[in-house]
């Protein structure tokens, strides 16, 4: 019973919500963590295939972060150890007993906890478990941070009120509309129904746009379901999608499309990579090169994280090239104190032109990502 995948999950979600509401009144706004822990534990054990592996992962990674990782001098090494099951999964090593549902995002959360772990702060297993497997966000985020999630979780009962439940429910309904009506409609009648006899330019153009809108509504719909449901049970997750088709440039796009993953990668890949590159004497006088290498590493890793198939590697490469070209352009414009290519146009025209160019570049990158061209 994967989150939001079938009617059984919605029945479960309704019961979950009812139990949380009931406990709010019975326990007078206390013990939220223990209640969530119990419900999540039962959910993993009873409804998730290899849920027991997930529970074992949480225990082992908790002990590792608390007792072993501080003894390993470099957090990168301990994070790579935590990353191992996910890498084995991505390179398709046959160890299916390890590969529980949501492994990728659970690993991201474990790594974030490991990197930010401070022995002076309280680190309870229950909080860690709830953070790893918070049911609405289990499969594909949005990605929160351990400290922020724990704080929100501690105040969750207080946050369950009429306004939050209503706004959460509206968000949830938006997700239903996006995922089950619009994405479904695009999938059935646009992605499949448009029949071109030959694979001409028009065929690819149509397919590219259809896939982009399908992916957006499917993914943004799922995120809205997750955010809406979690708000109803008192925890506000970070947003994931915010009108990505209005983005003006690649960084703006990544702040609007799967934003929680972008922020995660910025903090835990881009910044450490840039810091690491700062250590190279030869690069001291080339700040643009340093930035571009860090951008390339981040976006390339983002592409490869989906898997080591050609489509993901190429799409990561394309995203990286877009961002590097944009970064170089912006820095050169700043140096010359003018917009080199579009300086003569009015700001409004530049804005719409940027949106048009970006959406078309994005369409190509997402189409490569889809693998539909293979």
């Amino acid at each position: 019973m994967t989150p939001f995948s079938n009617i059984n999950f919605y029945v479960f979600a309704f019961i979950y919500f009812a139990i949380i509401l009931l406990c709010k009144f019975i326990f007078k706004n206390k013990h939220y963590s223990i209640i969530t822990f119990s419900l999540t534990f039962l959910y993993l054990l009873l409804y998730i295939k290899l849920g027991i592996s997930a529970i074992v992962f949480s225990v082992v990674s908790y002990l590792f972060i608390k007792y072993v990782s501080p003894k390993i001098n470099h957090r990168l090494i301990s994070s790579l150890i935590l990353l191992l099951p996910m890498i084995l999964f991505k390179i398709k090593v046959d160890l299916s007993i390890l590969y529980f549902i949501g492994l990728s995002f659970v690993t991201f959360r474990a790594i974030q906890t490991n990197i930010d772990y401070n022995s002076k702060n309280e680190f309870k297993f229950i909080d860690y478990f709830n953070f790893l497997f918070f049911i609405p966000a289990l499969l594909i985020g949005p990605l929160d941070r351990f400290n922020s999630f724990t704080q929100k979780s501690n105040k969750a009962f207080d946050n369950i009120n009429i306004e939050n439940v209503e706004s959460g429910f509206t968000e949830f309904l938006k997700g239903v509309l996006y995922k089950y009506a619009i994405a479904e409609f695009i999938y059935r009648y646009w992605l499949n129904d448009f029949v071109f006899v030959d694979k001409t330019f028009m065929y690819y153009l149509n397919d590219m746009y259809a896939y982009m809108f399908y992916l957006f509504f499917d993914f943004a719909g799922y995120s809205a379901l997750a955010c809406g449901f979690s708000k109803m049970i008192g925890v506000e997750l970070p947003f994931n999608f915010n009108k990505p088709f209005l983005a003006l440039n690649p960084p703006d796009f990544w702040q609007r499309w799967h934003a929680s993953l972008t922020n995660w990668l910025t903090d835990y890949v881009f910044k450490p990579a840039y810091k690491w590159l700062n250590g190279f004497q030869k690069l001291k006088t080339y700040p643009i090169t340093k930035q571009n290498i860090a951008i390339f590493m981040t976006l390339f890793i983002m592409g490869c994280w989906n898997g080591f198939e050609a489509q993901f590697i190429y799409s990561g490469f394309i995203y990286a090239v877009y961002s590097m070209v944009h970064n170089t352009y912006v820095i050169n414009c700043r140096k010359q104190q003018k917009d080199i290519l579009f300086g003569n146009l009015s700001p409004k025209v530049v804005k719409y032109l940027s949106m048009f160019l970006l959406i078309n570049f994005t369409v190509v990158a997402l189409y490569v990502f889809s693998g539909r061209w293979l």
Partner: protein
Amino acid sequence: MKKENYYNFLKKMLLYVSIVLGLYVLYNPHNKSKYNIPHSATSFIYAQF
């Protein structure tokens, strides 16, 4: 009713009507279209993660 409330009310109504109509058209058993096979459970998200 304030203008803002009026817009919010309309937005919500539009959301509810779209959901009811959309789900009815796509999932009702009388829809005999050859594409009437719900794919949501096997969409990209579930296939990938």
